[in-house]
């Protein structure tokens, strides 16, 4: 039967736009602007879900995303918050966490065995005997969790934007709206955020039977939309507060990261459920929820109901219910003195029976706990918090509205570093210390009366304006008048329990008492043991009540209990939103497109993508690499080495800089000569190596290995500052392309393109020269990294692709063969060159690499020298040696990182190993114990499958070893 009311003033639904959907297989209709829940309620559906632990039927509690009673799935998405997700046509919805439907849920039996499952029971069960735990674990895991994840859900990349403002106002209730307007009038740029689709906060539902609130609201909203200084984000929540006033604002279409100069949290308060037996039955709801139903969605909460209250708000709710035609059978007020205001009088005049000093002892379920059949009420003694059951009376009703108090929505303020005190006039924590630029206004700040909330907003706005350099008159707020909006202990104990504090986790009063008995009697331990507030609604409806209970248990003032830290997020936030468009920055050389066309298999090196080798149909990677390497040994090959780090060191102190930075000598280096450079860290660990070419009296050109380039260049910059040398560093990594032409025929090929003499005599190893290729200035360096006859050609990177093509053309007859990094690895291994990061690790020192020749220990200083002097005094315990396997070796090929084993003990490891077609055998580099390191010694490598390969220590280079 329909519960839809006639058109309400200010309702959010468009009655001319019908929307059709199904829930649990049944067809329903709602209106545009309905949430899933409001449409179901309008259709008379009360049971919206099943609880997490006991599978109890659940209906509306807050209708404001302060609980997760109504979680549904549409088959595609899961854990959809039905209370706040707006309805759309064709939705096919089911409740999550049921076994056979929300009404027939087969797991409902758990509720009846709940006495077996007290708080923390799972710590005390299932582990004995240990052998059975895996079985129990399966059972438990099956019971855990809420919705089922859909593995076919599409990847969503939501945009993440940045926005800036003077002041961010969070919450568009009376205080937030007033603050925003006032700030804007003071010339400040304002962003106003509210999680609801429409502005107004409580002004959109808390009417007390009148329309005054409506008028206030429409006036405020008019002024907001009239202001050019206010940008409004409605239907968007502030997910958290982060350092320096950064607040991510989450909307359906993505996140806006707002960076503000000041933040005003006008976030209001969450209504808290009073706790009594069966307070979770469908039909038992918060007063504010009932008001939202009526005024936002034009839905009647129930036909005959009573209001269980302990504050003035309950009376306002009752008036709204009457206005909506609900038969209010009684107001049950926990407080002996009740309420003496106009609303109370009006209700009395309207003939509503008011029981002061009474409680709802229990809500009476009808069959299957699917709804409320009535309520048992009885006198209640606030001092002892006991109910006089003997005098219990039964009232018939199909619903109960609860208004007993509020908890400040202070999460973001806590995250910003707020300090709080407990205000006894309003029985609420309020800020007493806020960081610079953070302000609170409205109910979160303890202001409850409408006028107080408005003036508190103006007060905050004035303080912001003054902070940001305006000078405006300070505003005062009058302190709270009348009864407390919150009751200090709205709990009705009951032998049968089922008086719920945390609806997410099915936690009852006795769970807290028992947890305390077991020693979990401070709020953090209690939270962890009972899991209160750890569910998806993050304690919005439960943390404050938990604190009140613990205070009572320990007989301490609430203030002494303190509260748990409120961590982000305010509402659970989708990973697709948070991740956004995940960027994957990568670097490509100018020649990349050619490599792709040529079928290169790419490998990531640092941020770069480099050809590992060039695929050929029908050939394995290993075969290709061997072919490419043979081409270099027998004819000529070329590789795009543009990714090398390149730095020019200029100035009078250029050589001095290199002498301090690297381990070698550069002072006496002649222009046009190249020298090896090795970099250590201050511990004497080998970090990187490369080549330094002197290209002018005061100018060196230094190469850094690809992956280390950014870090090494940073270190160069830092040390230059520290040493205060007269030198300038220029990072030319991307400015120059590098093509390494290598092999016996490299000379022939290159000579076709340059006019100068490249012969061994004219340009021996370690020399460099300037030249031209088709009018393009290039530098040619003789370096022997992959082959003795090799030329590194440097050119402005814009020309690299076309010069690469020229070389290919020029080398046609010589059979020039492009090769990749895998082949380069083999080639340099054949020459016995260790690679930093491959043949070294995070602890390797030059002695272990047997690279003493690269160290000039007589220099006054180089980075790491002092540590090397200390290390040199210790016995060396391993060394890097070149090794070969017998030419006739037939066993499993050893792999990099296989271990060197001697009489069952680890003595070292292989760092590089491969079959060298040029050497005709398996060659490699390995760390071995010193006593194994001498030439000709045989040591044992354990291969993947555990077999032993006997390796012999040799001299490098390998391919002409003998």
């Amino acid at each position, binding site marked *: 039967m329909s519960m839809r009311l006639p058109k309400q003033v200010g309702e959010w639904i468009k009655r001319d736009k019908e929307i059709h959907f199904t829930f649990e297989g049944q067809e329903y209709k709602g209106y545009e602007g309905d949430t899933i829940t409001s449409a179901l309620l309008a259709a008379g559906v009360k049971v919206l879900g099943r609880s997490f632990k006991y599978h109890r039927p659940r209906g509306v509690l807050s209708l404001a995303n302060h609980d997760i009673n109504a979680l549904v799935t549409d088959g595609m998405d899961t854990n959809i918050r039905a209370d706040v997700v707006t309805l759309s046509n064709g939705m096919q919805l089911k409740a999550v966490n049921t076994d056979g439907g929300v009404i027939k849920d087969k797991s409902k039996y758990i509720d009846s065995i709940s006495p077996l*499952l007290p708080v923390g029971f799972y710590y005390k069960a299932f582990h004995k005997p*240990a052998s059975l735990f895996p079985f129990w674990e399966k059972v438990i895991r099956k019971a855990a969790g809420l919705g089922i994840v859909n593995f076919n859900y599409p990847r969503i990349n939501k945009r993440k934007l940045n926005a800036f403002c003077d002041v961010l106002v969070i919450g568009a209730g009376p205080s937030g709206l007033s603050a925003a307007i006032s700030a804007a009038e003071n010339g400040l740029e304002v962003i106003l955020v509210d999680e609801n689709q429409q502005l107004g906060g409580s002004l959109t539902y808390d009417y007390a039977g009148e329309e005054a609130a409506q008028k206030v609201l429409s006036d405020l909203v008019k002024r907001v939309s009239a202001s050019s200084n206010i940008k409004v984000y409605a239907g968007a929540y502030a997910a958290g507060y982060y350092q320096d006033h950064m607040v991510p604002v989450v909307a359906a279409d993505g996140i806006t990261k707002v960076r503000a100069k000041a933040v005003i949290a006008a976030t209001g308060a969450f209504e808290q459920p009073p706790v009594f037996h069966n307070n979770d039955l469908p039909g038992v709801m918060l007063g504010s929820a009932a008001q939202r139903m009526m005024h936002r969605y034009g839905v009647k909460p129930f036909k005959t109901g009573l209001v269980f209250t302990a504050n003035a708000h309950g009376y306002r709710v009752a008036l709204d219910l009457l206005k909506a035609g609900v038969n209010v059978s009684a107001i049950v007020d926990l407080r002996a003195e009740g309420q003496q205001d106009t609303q109370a009088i009006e209700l009395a005049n309207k003939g509503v029976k008011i029981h002061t000093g009474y409680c709802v002892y229990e809500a009476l379920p009808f069959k299957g706990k699917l709804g409320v059949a009535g309520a048992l009420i009885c006198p209640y003694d606030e001092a002892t918090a006991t109910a006089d059951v003997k005098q219990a009376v039964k009232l018939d009703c199909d619903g109960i509205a609860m208004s007993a108090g509020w908890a400040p929505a202070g999460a973001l303020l806590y995250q910003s570093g707020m300090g709080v005190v407990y205000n006894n006039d309003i029985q609420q924590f309020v800020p007493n210390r806020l960081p610079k630029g953070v302000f609170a206004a409205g109910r979160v700040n303890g202001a409850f009366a409408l006028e107080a909330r408005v003036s508190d907003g103006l007060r905050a706005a004035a303080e912001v304006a003054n902070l940001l350099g305006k000078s405006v008159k300070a505003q005062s707020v009058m302190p709270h008048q009348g009864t407390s909006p919150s009751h200090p202990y709205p709990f009705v104990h009951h032998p049968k329990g089922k008086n719920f504090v945390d609806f997410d986790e099915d936690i009852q009063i006795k769970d807290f008492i028992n947890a305390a008995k077991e020693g979990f009697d401070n709020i953090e331990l209690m939270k962890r043991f009972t899991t209160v507030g750890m569910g998806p609604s993050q304690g919005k409806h439960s943390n404050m009540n938990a604190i009140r209970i613990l205070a009572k248990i320990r007989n301490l003032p609430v203030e002494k209990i303190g509260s748990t830290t409120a961590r982000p997020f305010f509402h659970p936030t989708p990973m697709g939103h*948070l991740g956004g468009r995940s960027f994957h920055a990568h670097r490509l050389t100018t020649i990349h497109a050619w490599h792709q066309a040529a079928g290169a298999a790419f490998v990531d090196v640092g941020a770069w993508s480099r050809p590992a080798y060039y695929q050929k149909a029908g050939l394995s990677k290993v075969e290709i690499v061997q072919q490419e390497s043979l081409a270099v040994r027998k004819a000529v090959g070329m590789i795009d080495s543009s990714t090398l780090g390149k730095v020019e060191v200029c100035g009078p102190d250029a050589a001095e800089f290199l002498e301090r930075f690297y381990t070698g000598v550069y002072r006496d280096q002649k222009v046009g000569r190249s020298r090896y450079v090795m970099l250590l860290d201050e511990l004497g660990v080998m970090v990187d190596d490369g080549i330094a070419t002197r290209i002018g009296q005061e100018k060196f050109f230094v190469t850094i290995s690809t992956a280390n380039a950014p870090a090494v260049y940073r270190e160069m910059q830092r040390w230059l500052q520290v040493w205060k040398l007269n030198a300038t560093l220029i990072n030319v990594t991307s400015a120059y392309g590098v093509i390494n032409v290598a092999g016996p025929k490299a000379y022939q090929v290159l000579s076709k393109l340059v006019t100068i003499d490249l012969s061994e005599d004219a340009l021996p190893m370690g020399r460099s020269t300037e030249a031209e290729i088709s009018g393009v200035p290039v530098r040619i360096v003789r370096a022997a990294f992959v082959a003795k006859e090799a030329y590194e050609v440097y050119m402005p990177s814009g020309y690299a692709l076309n010069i690469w093509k020229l070389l290919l053309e020029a080398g046609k007859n010589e059979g020039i063969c492009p090769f990749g990094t895998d082949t380069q690895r083999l080639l340099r291994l054949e020459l016995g060159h260790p690679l930093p990061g491959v043949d070294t690790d995070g602890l390797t020192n030059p002695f272990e690499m047997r690279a003493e020749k690269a160290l000039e220990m007589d220099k006054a200083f180089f980075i790491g020298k002092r540590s090397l002097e200390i290390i040199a005094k210790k016995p060396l315990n391993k060394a890097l040696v070149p090794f070969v396997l017998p030419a006739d070796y037939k066993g499993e090929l050893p792999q990099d990182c296989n271990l060197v084993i001697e009489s069952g003990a680890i003595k070292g490891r292989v760092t590089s190993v491969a079959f060298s077609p040029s050497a005709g055998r398996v060659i490699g580099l390995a760390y071995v114990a010193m006593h194994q390191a001498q030439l000709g010694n045989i040591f044992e490598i354990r291969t993947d499958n555990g077999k032993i390969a006997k390796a012999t220590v040799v001299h490098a280079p390998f391919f002409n070893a003998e």
Partner: protein
Amino acid sequence: MAYQLLKYALGGEYKEPRFFRDCQTPKKSYDAVIIGGGGHGLAAAYYLAKDHGITNVAVLEKGYIGGGNTGRNTTIVRSNYLTPDGVNFYDASVKLFEGLSTELDINLFYSNRGHFTLAHSESAMRTMRWRAEVNKHVGVKSRVVGTDEIAKACPQMDLSCSGKSPIQGALYHEPGSIARHDAVAWGYARGADSMGVEIFQNTEVQGIDIKDGQVQGVQTSRGYISTGKVLSAVAGFTPRICKMVDLKTPIVIHPLQACVSEPMKPWLDTILVSGSLHVYVSQSSRGELVMGSSLDPYEFHSTRSTFDFVEGLTSHIVDMFPFLSNVKIVRQWAGMADITPDFAPIMGMTPIKGFYLDAGWGTWGFKATPISGKTMAHTLANDKPHDLIHSFRLSRFEEYELTGEKGAASVGH
């Protein structure tokens, strides 16, 4: 239904005893004082009493027990380290964990899931083989596996990681497990308390009294306590305690963050770690995805959360599991990790007689809880370091004898 539960059904009054006494006033002196009521400190207290009969012990906790990194980590237990010493140490820990629920008579939900360290590059694969070979050598079940085996264990994962960093293989570590972290602290607390150890919460150490290089006692917010032996097991607070005794260490504090999703029905059975994507993820017994990432990029002695962390983590998670786009993160938090230069702990004796250090746990402390407790108890009781922790001694830095765990650090991660 497990019989242990029946007792709650029968007999109305709830008769569960306290896990541990509510100690308020310390005695004048104790045989040993343990600073830090986290897993490590409580475990050390437990084994001091159980293995060595030393029960006149006070545990001093500034906040509440298990409230530090014990309650903030992502609860992964494994032993697939790089050096034989490291592997042996953590393997001993795994073996203790396996029997711990029974020993402490509390269900730790110790759940053996298997642990994949994903490799997205050849250099990462090299490190995986290195670790696998060392693990095999000392008898720990780790091996290099290909993408087919990963796909079998986690068919839902996009092995190409949305095409951004294709997975090439992994190190599979069979013993990899997760556990209910709080319960570990509570279980040790109960065990230690039942043997006479006194646990003081909300008790802050304000100074440590030393005469001629020998510990005399500690000044606390509950008064002076005299003792000859002090164990510092305070993770992120180590520098503050060491400053009290003027002890230099290489430790630096970086926040380490984690977050948890809303609960969903179980689907992720294994533990996944990706070094290059800086992601580790498992699904808890509650059905939440528990996710962590790499350390915060700079020194900071606090536990505040950053948005950068959760942005980076989720973008990588969604690369691995595109279908999680609309699954929600409920909560994020942070701990203070005490990082050492060689990614191994600092354990044992110090130049100050009677001052023992259990620190440098960085991102790997929870998994070592039982064995650190056991070996530190042994070290205190015998005043000489347990064999398992010899290579973790503080003096290794001055001696230029850093542990090889650093080796892997610079090798393709």
